[in-house]
């Protein structure tokens, strides 16, 4: 058997790490996936190769996060290895060692925001963003589309790329009114520098193959065709599966495989998915075969029954309307941006962020300077109920000289009354903290 696309797999099940012994994010999570992949003989398919993670460095993390108080305290070795797995997956493609790559690593990352006080939604470091920003530093500017196919809204990734027009973020997920983290509505469309480049598609519970593939064909693929990214990333959660214990959707292994064949991502990164025995072994096998360009038609859950999973016509109708709305908003993004932000010079956004895994409450205000020469200097004022009060300043990758200068000035003069001040200088890949 020969893969049509040379596929690199960073398979790292972290068999010695768990949040707690009975937590969904425990040692056992990828055990049956490994069993399935081994039994299928995936490692013997010519053109599919396995790679190990190379642990991420402190700087890799600082490019994306304000870790409070610092990276060493906030990130365990396991997190550094998982993020390193994502970096390696990106690097496989960029260095030409593989044509495509898939990181099956844990813990996941898409709920990790720019500021990190602890673990939320089983995530501490945003593994996709850490991987992607490492690539931008190493290989230069890139136009990237991140498609979040996890059942939960990718709120962390949304936050990180909120004001970045070179990173199109599309997340489809179970409607936030019915599932953690409770966000991801269509009017969350991005900051003043990137309005319209954050796209949410909240789907009703019990959406099945038909609904997901409809959204793919009628929203995601047309938008991608217009956006023309250099790279497509699948933030590949597997919890839309009908057997997932913590969600309410009806997606399948076949559906995931078809989705990946059509989406044709360059890099896929495993996110959530906690039906470790009934879904993950089959979904992962399906995604791997689809990415490698191999026949996946035989990959089905042992209890797969399409008739039982047929989608309610009312859901189908709802999704059709929703898709039309989302696509129209994409086309109207400039007009809508004008309406949303008008002539504001500084856009502020207040949020409360709850770290469900660690039980921390954070209040933050994000401030985006509107700049005509770049996407604009921005900074976050944040405090946690654990006593931290911080300012995090970001000089974006495309920052003009003025915004760069202003960033350093702001960093210099900030400090009084704060526990920590951080400066991310993405132009010079420099990270300061005091």
């Amino acid at each position, binding site marked *: 058997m020969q893969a049509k696309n040379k596929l690199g797999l960073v398979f790292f099940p972290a068999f010695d790490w768990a949040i707690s012994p009975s937590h969904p994010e425990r040692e*056992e999570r990828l055990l049956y996936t490994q069993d399935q992949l081994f039994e299928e003989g995936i490692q013997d398919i010519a053109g599919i190769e396995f790679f190990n993670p190379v642990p991420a460095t402190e700087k890799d993390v600082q490019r994306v996060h304000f870790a409070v108080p610092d990276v060493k305290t906030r990130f365990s070795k396991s997190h550094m290895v998982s993020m390193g797995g994502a970096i390696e997956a990106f690097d496989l493609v960029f260095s030409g060692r593989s044509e495509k790559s898939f990181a099956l690593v844990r813990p996941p990352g898409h709920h990790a925001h720019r500021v990190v006080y602890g673990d939320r939604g089983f995530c501490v470091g945003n593994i996709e963003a850490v991987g992607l920003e490492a690539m931008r530093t190493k290989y230069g500017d890139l136009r990237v589309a991140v498609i979040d196919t996890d059942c939960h809204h990718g709120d962390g990734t949304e936050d990180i790329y909120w004001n970045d027009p070179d990173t199109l973020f599309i997340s489809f997920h179970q409607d936030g009114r019915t599932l953690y983290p409770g966000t991801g509505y269509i009017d969350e469309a991005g900051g003043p520098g990137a309005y319209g480049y954050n796209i949410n598609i909240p789907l009703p519970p019990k959406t099945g193959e038909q609904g997901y593939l409809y959204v793919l064909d009628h929203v995601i693929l047309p938008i991608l065709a217009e956006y023309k990214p250099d790279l497509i990333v699948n933030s590949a959660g597997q919890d839309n599966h009908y057997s997932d214990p913590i969600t309410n959707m009806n997606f399948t292994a076949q559906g995931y495989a078809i989705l990946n064949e059509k989406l044709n991502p360059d890099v896929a990164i495993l996110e959530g998915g906690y039906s470790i025995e009934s879904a993950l072994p089959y979904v992962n096998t399906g995604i791997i075969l689809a990415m490698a360009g191999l026949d996946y038609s035989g990959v089905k859950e*042992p209890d797969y029954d399409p008739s039982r999973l047929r989608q309610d016509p009312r859901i189908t109708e709802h999704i059709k309307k929703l898709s039309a709305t989302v696509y129209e908003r994409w086309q109207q993004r400039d007009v809508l941006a004008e309406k949303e932000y008008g002539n504001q010079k500084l856009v502020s956004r207040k949020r409360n962020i709850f770290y469900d895994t660690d039980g921390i409450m954070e209040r933050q205000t994000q401030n985006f300077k509107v700049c005509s020469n770049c996407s604009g200097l921005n900074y976050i004022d944040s405090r946690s109920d654990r006593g931290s009060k911080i300012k995090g300043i970001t000089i974006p990758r495309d920052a003009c000289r003025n915004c760069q200068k202003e960033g350093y000035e702001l960093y210099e003069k900030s400090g009084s009354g704060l526990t920590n001040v951080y400066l991310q200088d993405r132009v010079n890949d420099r990270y300061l903290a005091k």
Partner: protein
Amino acid sequence: MLIGIDMGGTHIDGVAVKDNKIIKTIKHQVDHTDLYRTILNAIYDLIADLDKAQISRVNLSTTISTNAIVENKTAAVDLILQKGPGINFEFPEIPSEVNYIDGYVDHRGKMVKDLDYQQLAVLKKDLSAREDLKKDLNKAEDLKQDLNMSQTKNLAVVTKFSTRNPEHEKAIADYFAADYNQVTQGHTLSGRLNFPRRVNTAYLNSAVYNIFQEFANNIAAALREVEINAPIYILKADGGTMPLVDAITRPVETILSGPAASFMGMSALFDNRMDSVLLDIGGTTTDIFFLVDGVPVFEPTGITIGQHKTLVRAIYSVSIGLGGDSCLSVVNSADGDNFNYLSANNSYDNNLAEKIRIGPERKGPPLLFGGTIPTLTDAMSVLHKLDFDNFSTEQVTWARQGITELAEQLALSAEDFAELVLKKAAQTIKNQVDNLLLQLNSQPVYTVREILADRQIKPVEVKVIGGPAKILAEYLKQVFKLNVLLPEQFKVANAIGAALAQPTMELNLLADTQRKILIIPELNIYEKIGSRYSLAEGQKYILQCLNQAAKKLSDSKLATEIIEESSFNMVDGYSSGKNIRIKAQIKPGLSCVIE
């Protein structure tokens, strides 16, 4: 007294070892038309003046199974497979019709879909009808029935995840047993997961069954006839042995034992405690092995023979087309080999060396021995590196002429050219070793601990045996920049390895306390356990099973050890349990060290 026989492609070597000393060695040519006679003659010659009563063990490394596979002299095999949902496998490498049946066991070993006995009945009828048809055809055409056709067929049965639950394999095997001469069940050959490899392994086992069985029976009878009553063992690719009787039921494990014999021989001749590269430089090829902390590196899943990837445990070895008989040629364009032997100070030599090609084929004997194409050996002769007492002046002239002709194409003297050839040979080996190390050092690991430990193989020594080894040693020393060691007895290292090898066995235990099932596929153990079964109980049990098996394998005490163990918490709705996995083995080792 221990007897070791190693049959290779061209030579068969024998050695007798007594009180840590080699007391006799022999070397014969292999008669490919009669391997059985070749072995017998070697044994007769070896023991001719020895006291047969003192022989305590005969270890044979044979190419019987390997040759049968490579030369397609295998028995006809029917295959019955249950592949379940997953990859749509095809097996183009297997020359049998594959019959797929329904039913499925999942990764946990849970029965998802049972066998359909109606389907089996139809298949049974169908298979025997096909067999009758073939027999009729043969009769009709009055064909001279060859050995394979005259016998009833063999059967290989493999189901997906049978190492997690072998019940389907057992049931199918029972159902069809009466129709076949022999039946192989996939799970009995290895406890490792890999369905396509398990299929190939089971197929090969049935395919070489007849030919190996015949050989085994003959050899046992022949040794009894000359009053050798010592137990007979067969060498395996993992450097261990198995009793002849076991080899009859698992003949696939006797394939490709040659490199393992060399490896074990080298282990016996060297003091091994560190990371090292082992090289067996022969006439046609150089075999490369590695030792890590003195322990052999194994193939990650199993050995490959021809187109067949198997689950047969094997010492990691890679063969490259470079040996004493490798043909030499001069090419116009660089071959792309990274030749950096002298790159720092002599780019002139560098460019020339890129135009010299060594091997990868052997196109006949060296000029020195009356061949027609210059070889590595001829280059050695030009440099007066060989023992010239063995050759006539005429022979030496042949070699010199051939090398001179090649040297002139690069405007070099014969000596300079020959020197460059030897340097390049050493560099070629080094490059290959570096490539392999790169691969070995990036093998997947699955725990944070292993990632952080980042254990890299860093050889500190090179150990060499084989005909050209002595001459190449100084060149290897320069390219590897490491100590290069040569044993004295290197010419029969393979037979020494065969003589000193001991039985080996690997067992895999999986205990699932939710399903309350314990399985050790290799021993056909599939039994109930309590819901509180622990890792410690598993450890005790697997060692007990292994020690018991070890006792059957050998009169002397064999050391056993646990090599991998894990216990996963399983949480499934409201119930929870443990998924315990343990791998244990008889420590690969030698009966004694040679003084």
